[in-house]
């Protein structure tokens, strides 16, 4: 087995109370993620699944426990997609390379490679408002992959897509993930999606992560 690219060790998290009784979101959360492995977190809406991703992405800090990951090697695909409306598909993907030292030529090549990989190269000069929901999500995934991450965080990225588009995108993404050996944490409330997409499924219930045994259907 590869060495883990993400270690979540005994993490606790509670949102600041502001006078309201505190509600613990996570307790004793622990798991290891290796390259090419997909872990899904399933659970009810508002149960803390996205909070776990926000912790791994470094947007918030745990109250207790540790998360070991190279944040520069973490990419995230958001449920709200988050494409910048004033940038076309190409510029949105290129944004992920601005902090790198790549030349403009190298950046262009990388962006085009990733747009091609996700099947949206033809739409590179289109603004987000000119793209369909599925295409927007493909561009968002290309943006997350272009910086060559070791860990990919997916926050219900397929929830707004129709079944056919969803399954096609999942298949393509799974191929890319396995080929590039990217460790993935997928948050979803769809058990079928988790079963299709993941190697390991965790159920987040009452702030605790429980391993869920599923036989893959594909």
């Amino acid at each position: 087995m590869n060495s883990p690219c993400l270690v979540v060790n005994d993490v606790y998290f509670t949102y600041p109370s502001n006078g309201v009784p505190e509600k613990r979101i996570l307790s004793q959360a622990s798991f290891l993620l290796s390259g090419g492995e997909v872990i899904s977190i399933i659970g009810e809406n508002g149960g803390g699944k996205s909070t776990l991703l926000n912790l791994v992405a470094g947007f918030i800090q745990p109250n207790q426990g540790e998360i070991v990951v190279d944040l520069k090697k973490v990419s995230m695909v958001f449920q709200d997609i988050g494409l910048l409306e004033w940038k076309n598909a190409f510029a949105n993907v290129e944004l992920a390379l601005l902090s790198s030292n790549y030349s403009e030529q190298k950046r262009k090549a990388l962006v085009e490679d990733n747009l091609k990989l996700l099947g949206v190269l033809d739409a590179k000069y289109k603004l987000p408002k000119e793209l369909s929901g599925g295409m927007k999500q493909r561009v968002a995934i290309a943006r997350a992959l272009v910086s060559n991450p070791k860990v990919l965080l997916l926050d219900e990225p397929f929830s707004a897509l129709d079944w056919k588009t969803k399954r096609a995108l999942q298949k393509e993404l799974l191929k890319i993930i396995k080929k590039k050996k990217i460790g993935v944490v997928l948050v979803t409330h769809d058990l079928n999606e988790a079963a299709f997409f993941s190697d390991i499924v965790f159920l987040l219930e009452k702030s605790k992560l429980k391993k869920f045994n599923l036989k893959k259907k594909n």
Partner: protein
Amino acid sequence: MNGVFLARKVLLLCASFLIFFFVWQFIAGLLNTFLFPSPVGVFFELISLFSSGEILGHIYSSLYRVLVGLIIGIIGGAVCGYVLGINSFLSSLFNPIVQILRPIPPIAWIPIAILWFGIGDSSSFFIIFIASFFPVFTNVYFGVHSLPTIFEKVAKSLNLSNWQKFWQVVFPFTTPYLLTGIKTAVGFSWMVIIAAEMIASQSGLGYFIDYNRLLLAPTKIMAAMIVIGILGLIFHYSIVFIESKILFWRSVSNE
């Protein structure tokens, strides 16, 4: 479709002007006094003022003051809006002061401006700076605070530096707010420049209006008022045009 839409718009515009001038002419005929000149009289006065060049120097003076004051006010308001919008410490420190100064009408600053800068361009620049600073500041500050959390997260997850985040995310997102602030500032500037020139100047359209009040020449006053309205309209539509070019990524209203 676009042609039909445009023709309809032009027709409505012509109709609105015709109704305005018809009502004006009707009231002028009814009152029949030299204190309320008719639109025809004002129209001929305008031609005379432009052909003699009498009003041109005053237009130039007012335009010059509005442009200089606006540029300083817009830059100042935008810079302060972004700095205080982004930095919560500076915002806590300075925003209360801004909020105390903001409700003071720019015209209330005229007496103190005369004392500080004397009669002339400098006091007009100052008054227009005050008039344009606050709408730009308020809009930009609000715009920065309206940045959706998702864009904050995107910038962080893409490891953008603060500078990159500002130019790639914050500034483009807040451009519509900035332009709204500028449009309001332009309107305010034309309002206050006239008042300022009536009190603290020896030239400009405000001075021209007040001077002709002393000469009991209402036709010239109304002609100057129409010039002010047209200049304000040109400024407004210039910004709407620039807005439509900059904000190509969203639909722009033609208000």
